[in-house]
């Protein structure tokens, strides 16, 4: 099954806490997930200040600057992985270095009903 692991953290603190991971550690972990054959995709994201949110209503596109919702913790990155079950996915998600300073939401991917 595929799972999306959404890494959230307070982006003002993400890189400045004693437990904050360096980029090299994040990359090393991503490499080890890739080696285990579970990685489908993973990226870190730029701060929410760089976000734009778009909607299409009645054929008209409207854009607002900023994230979809103002929250205390922001989406900082994601892993899309292949895992045997939810517990295996949680295991992969829990070891993402940023989980030490933020939280990782694990969502099973839904297959479209076609």
């Amino acid at each position, binding site marked *: *099954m595929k799972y999306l692991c959404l890494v959230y953290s307070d982006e003002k603190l993400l890189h400045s806490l004693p437990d904050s*991971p*360096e980029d*090299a*550690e994040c990359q*090393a*972990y991503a490499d*080890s997930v890739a*080696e*285990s*054959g*579970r990685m489908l995709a993973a990226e870190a994201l730029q701060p929410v200040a760089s976000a734009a949110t778009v909607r299409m209503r009645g054929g008209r596109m409207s854009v607002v600057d900023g994230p979809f919702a103002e929250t205390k913790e922001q989406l900082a990155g994601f892993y899309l992985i292949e895992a*045997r*079950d*939810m*517990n*295996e996915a*949680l*295991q992969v998600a829990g070891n993402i*270095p940023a989980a030490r300073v933020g939280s990782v939401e694990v969502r*099973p991917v839904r297959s479209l009903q076609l």
Partner: protein
Amino acid sequence: MDEKQAAAHAMVDRVFRTEARRVKATLIRLLGDFDLAEEALQDAFVAALHDWPRQGVPDKPRPWLVSAGRFKAIDKLRRRARFDASLEELAWRMEQDAEAPEAVAPELEDDRLRLVFTCCHPVLPADAQVALTLREVCGLTTEAIASAYLTAVPALAQRIVRAKNRIRETRIPYTVPERHELPARLESVLRVVYLVFNEGYFASSGDSLLRADLSAEAIRLGRLLGELLPAPEVLGLLALMLLVESRRPARIGTDGQPVLLEEQDRRLWDAGLIAEGLPLVEAALRAGPAGPYALQAAIAAVHAEAPDAGATDWAQIVGLYDVLLQMAPSPVVALNRAVAVAMRDGPATGLALVDGLLAAGELADYGLAHSARADLCRRLGRRDEARAAYARALALSRQEPERRFLAARLAALDLS
């Protein structure tokens, strides 16, 4: 992907299906941690996918996978130790262990037995024991277990994570218990296996009366235990499960409703399972004073040996229940005994016993007690009492096919 690679992939897949559970049990022992072992298992199979097409499939795939998994785990810890110095010592210790001679000849089969005892350790809550055993020993996914027990996936996943934390924090040893503590620890293992079986055979709620996959897993565990630790109660439980399971094809009518034991078409019973179960009952009874599982298996054997319901040796069944009731007194056993007495001595005698049990209070909310009362009243022609008791049983039942069955009985009363 070329043909040779495809063949190697198919081979790795096949080995994974047959060996993964055993390899994982051994890795848990060697690495001392469930989660590290799970990662190592995955890495070992990735290594197999890489190496086997090039170097050929090893003669003994299992030790190859164990050793590959172990070295991958050490390698991974080493790499993580670059960022987390606290892992350095663990990696070092694992490396030393890996060079120790005992690691060369790991007792692979015993590892699964160790794993069962760890998963069923009494410091873990009962529902966690069941979930952990199904996932770690039987290899079911979190999602499959959640669906079998009608639990939400995140809640079940959390239960498994907490149980593993508990194992880590309380340092539950990964061993088969010593002789002096074996009986108590074995009891909790057998209880878990029996719970899994029962959930598969008498699903406690939901649309489906049977969850065959859970019963099959329980029997598989029972056979494994029987092979590795043939204690009388282990054989007794395995025999009990086999004999009860043998009735499965006759247990559901064509209309999807449960069929009572005395009304089942015994030609549908699985003769193979009965043939496997009966000698186990004898072995269990011969091996020493009979325990509760062996006694229940002996009762199931009396049913299995009767060519039709009328030929059942009810006197022997009542006698076995008497012993069982002395050894493991419970209101449910007393109820089953009362039903057997009704078959031996007539419904009036049985009803007096059932009413005594209901009056004692413990069975007041137990649906089967009310449906037993209803059935006895019906046989005695006491229609109003039968109607009230079926209605009470119906109100207590959470299981759809059983509800339909009770509703049909209730309707039949008004027609007769």
